[in-house]
């Protein structure tokens, strides 16, 4: 143990968060008795200006060479305290945090036990600090280009904002067009403006912006690198239509004889051709061939589209293309889908075509939809006279069949659907079964009340137990809890507000980006309140429903927030690197390559080096590992893999870790 160290210890109360459970004065007193500690104190809020100035003053007054802060998680305030120490002339890596809040006061009840544990945690931090070396962060360049994964409203908005600030942006969209879920919607709450009217201009803006490149019908293959320097591989799937030659005339679609594929854009309510443009305003306005449906791909015959294309754009031989590009920042905007209703067959969805999901109903109500906006039943094309809406189908469900969370958008779109039906068809009776009506948001509750008070929509507090077909009606059996009755409604259509879930692709994307994901497959924020649009992985940002259920206004706000973070990052020419990187002791390295194989960042390479040796040969050439500090992210995989103990991590050396373990076991 170095006797040159003069260490200060600061114990934070965190108001009552720590002080109510841990005797902070006792912790300070215990630490005062430790070797090398020349100063120890406690204070109400160490992170406040008052707390930080205490650190600065103590560093100067006592000539401190290191500081232990006993406070919250280092994820919360490590950066704050390092900055404070640095401003008083101390190397920021001579600051250690003992987490006595999350790891101690919040999880224990007994004050004696908690205090004892806090002292152990403080001693542990001190043991490590005694072996710390001052570290200096290097710098790396920032590639001035952003990647947006997902071309819905979230991705489009983020891309437009980033482009507006002058940076290049690429959007990768897996379907043949940008636009996403919003393109499928009819009207939008609470103002009832048409989704297409407000979305399509943005889609056109994105397509025409010279800073934005669209990769539609494309998927992410891989991502490597780190903040400021990501390398992405994008698979541009073969459309079998040459985008440069196609004029978007649509003749191929008209001539295509294969017309049996389910139309995904219309939620399978009608069919489409094998060569198709998903919808009239699609961008790019270039068709794609569905090779599983195309007669030419199945039998080698047909080829009608090719014969009729005057632009010679049809290319049956076209192959997938892999594009490799560098990016400084990545925005994930992968969106959502409604859950499958196969585990909710009590509502008869799979047994009756007139039981539809809300998104299907959206297509039925849409002027460009399968019924040209006419409200008719899918089964027989008849006009319905009574519609029952069921909310919370699969939301707030802890039985294992659905999702435990509230999907957030259903109360509002159900009120919208109910209102639109009553507005357009006053003869239609509309009932809504609800558990709670949740309408926080500007003009939201007023909107819902309008459905009730102005449009006479019948809101029933209760839930549907069973939907069964009865003649050409749907018998809806449910509860009316206010009346304490079981009621039966003979309906013509039933609309189910199915829960929403993150697009399943997000799992693959999250793995590629080493971005964390929660139990519901939503991406996790770096901090739920203070860093809501950042992923814990530096340089990866979150936009839209991939982070949690939200409506269009919230999605757009978050998309712009993510863009602001990207712009802030791209505006920098250099980034400070994490100095806690691996290094190899060349005298111990035996050149086995084990570390190179486990390194997820490709930061380790090998070189031959000449070493002096005793004996007549005097020198010999040995193969040794070399770490590229600009690429290493300090994960430590190499240090635990190295069989000869040559690899070590700066700031987290094996010696330091062992000293921590010793301190705990003391």
């Amino acid at each position, binding site marked *: 143990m170095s006797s040159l160290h003069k260490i200060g210890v600061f114990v934070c109360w965190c108001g009552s968060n720590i002080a109510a459970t841990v005797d902070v004065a006792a912790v300070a007193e215990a630490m005062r008795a430790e070797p090398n500690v020349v100063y120890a104190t406690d204070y109400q809020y160490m992170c406040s200006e008052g707390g930080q100035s205490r650190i600065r003053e103590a560093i100067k007054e006592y000539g401190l060479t290191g500081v232990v802060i006993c406070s919250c998680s280092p994820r919360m305030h490590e950066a704050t305290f390092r900055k404070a120490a640095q401003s008083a002339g101390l190397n920021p890596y001579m600051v250690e945090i003992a987490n006595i809040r999350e790891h101690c006061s919040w999880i224990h009840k007994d004050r004696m036990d908690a205090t004892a544990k806090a002292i152990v945690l403080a001693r542990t931090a001190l043991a490590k600090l005694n072996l710390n070396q001052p570290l200096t962060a290097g710098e790396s360049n920032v590639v001035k280009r952003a990647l947006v994964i997902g071309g819905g409203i979230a991705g489009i908005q983020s891309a437009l904002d980033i482009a507006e600030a002058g940076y290049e942006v690429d959007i990768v969209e897996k379907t043949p067009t940008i636009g996403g879920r919003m393109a499928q919607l009819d009207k939008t709450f609470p103002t009832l403006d048409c989704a297409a009217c407000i979305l399509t201009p943005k889609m056109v803006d994105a397509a025409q912006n010279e800073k934005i490149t669209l990769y539609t019908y494309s998927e992410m293959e891989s991502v490597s690198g780190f903040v400021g320097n990501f390398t992405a591989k994008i698979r541009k799937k073969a459309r079998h239509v040459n985008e440069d030659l196609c004029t978007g005339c649509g003749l191929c679609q008209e001539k295509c004889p294969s017309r049996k594929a389910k139309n995904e854009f219309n939620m399978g309510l009608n069919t489409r051709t094998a060569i198709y443009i998903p919808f009239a305003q699609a961008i790019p306005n270039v068709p794609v061939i569905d090779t599983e449906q195309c007669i030419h791909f199945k039998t080698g015959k047909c080829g009608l589209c090719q014969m009729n294309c005057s632009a010679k754009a049809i290319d049956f031989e076209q192959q997938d293309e892999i594009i490799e590009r560098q990016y400084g920042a990545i925005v994930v905007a992968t969106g959502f889908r409604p859950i499958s209703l196969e585990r909710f*067959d009590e509502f008869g969805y799979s047994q009756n075509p007139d039981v539809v999901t809300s998104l299907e109903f959206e297509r039925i109500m849409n002027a460009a939809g399968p019924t040209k906006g006419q409200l008719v039943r899918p089964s027989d094309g008849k006009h319905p006279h009574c519609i029952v809406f069921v909310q919370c189908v699969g939301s707030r469900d802890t039985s294992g069949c659905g999702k435990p969370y509230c999907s957030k958008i259903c109360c509002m779109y159900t009120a919208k659907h109910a209102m639109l039906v009553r507005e357009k068809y006053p003869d239609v009776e509309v009932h809504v079964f609800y558990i709670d009506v949740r309408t926080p948001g500007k003009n939201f509750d007023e909107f819902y009340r309008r459905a009730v008070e102005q449009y006479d929509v019948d809101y029933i507090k209760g839930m549907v137990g069973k939907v*069964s077909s*009865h003649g050409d009606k749907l*018998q809806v059996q449910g509860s009316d809890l206010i009346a304490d009755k079981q009621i039966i409604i003979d309906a013509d259509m039933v609309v189910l507000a199915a829960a929403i879930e993150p697009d399943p692709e997000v799992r693959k994307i999250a793995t590629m980006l080493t971005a964390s994901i929660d139990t519901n497959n939503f991406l996790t924020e770096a901090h739920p309140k203070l860093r809501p649009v950042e992923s814990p992985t530096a340089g990866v940002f979150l936009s839209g429903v991939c982070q949690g259920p939200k409506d269009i206004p919230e999605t757009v706000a978050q998309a712009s927030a993510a863009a602001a973070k990207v712009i802030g990052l791209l505006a920098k020419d250099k980034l400070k690197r994490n100095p806690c990187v691996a290094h190899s002791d060349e005298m111990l390295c035996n050149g086995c390559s084990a570390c190179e194989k486990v390194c997820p960042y490709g930061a380790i390479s090998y070189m031959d080096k000449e070493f002096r040796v005793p004996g007549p040969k005097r020198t010999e050439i040995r193969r040794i590992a070399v770490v590229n500090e600009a690429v290493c992210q300090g994960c430590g995989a190499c240090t635990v893999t190295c069989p000869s103990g040559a690899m070590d991590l700066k700031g987290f050396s094996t010696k330091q870790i062992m000293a921590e373990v010793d301190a705990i076991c003391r």
Partner: protein
Amino acid sequence: MKFSYYPGCTLKTKAKDLDAYGRRAAEALGITLEELPEWQCCGAVYPMAKDEIATKLSSVRALVSARDLGNDLVTLCSACHHVIKRVNGDMQNDENIRTKANNYLQLETPYAGETKVIHYLEMLRDVVGFDELKKKVVNPLKGRKIGAYYGCMLLRPSKEMQFDNPENPTIIEDFIKAIGATPVLYPFRNECCGGYVTLSKKELAQKKADVILESAMEQGAEELITACPLCMYNLDANSTAHKLPVHYFTELLAEALGVK
């Protein structure tokens, strides 16, 4: 293929057909059903309370006896299947029930739910296979429009019964197809027939049975099949209007296999 077989009380008395046709059909399919020695009544309803131990013991005895014979256990009556399967689940998952039942029974080898319990229909689906069954049909029931009546006991709670999709099951429809007839889907095929309440509140049970029969008739069913003697009673004897013939599924199976 050999199984232990638990017939249950009612199959020895009022529902002899369900049993007799089931045995004959199994034989025709090359399956040996060995009746468990000295089985006792399962109690007909699953005792839901966590502190009910004694009422579960007869099921445990049957399960232990199948285990000791080294056989999977086949049931035929829906109620017996429900009770034995759920008690087996308790023996696997409820430590308190397992300990107390074992303490009481003083077995040489304690029982922890090792026996696999399958219903006759599951045996047809998973062991014989409906495709194989179809091949063995000598007398396909062509043109017969049959509604499957599942009732409650086979399906629910689905987490424990693991029988089929509880809201849109297909196993009996697949069975009907395999014996050459036409299944008729109707929405009330998994709703309650009134069950044991028929003893003290006949009218309540009648209402329930009538709704089921009406639903089946409306969708074009000309007869119903069931695996439960109590469902049979409620649908056949206790319902008021709209009579449809109701059969045990084993009767039709035996007919199709030419062993009726």
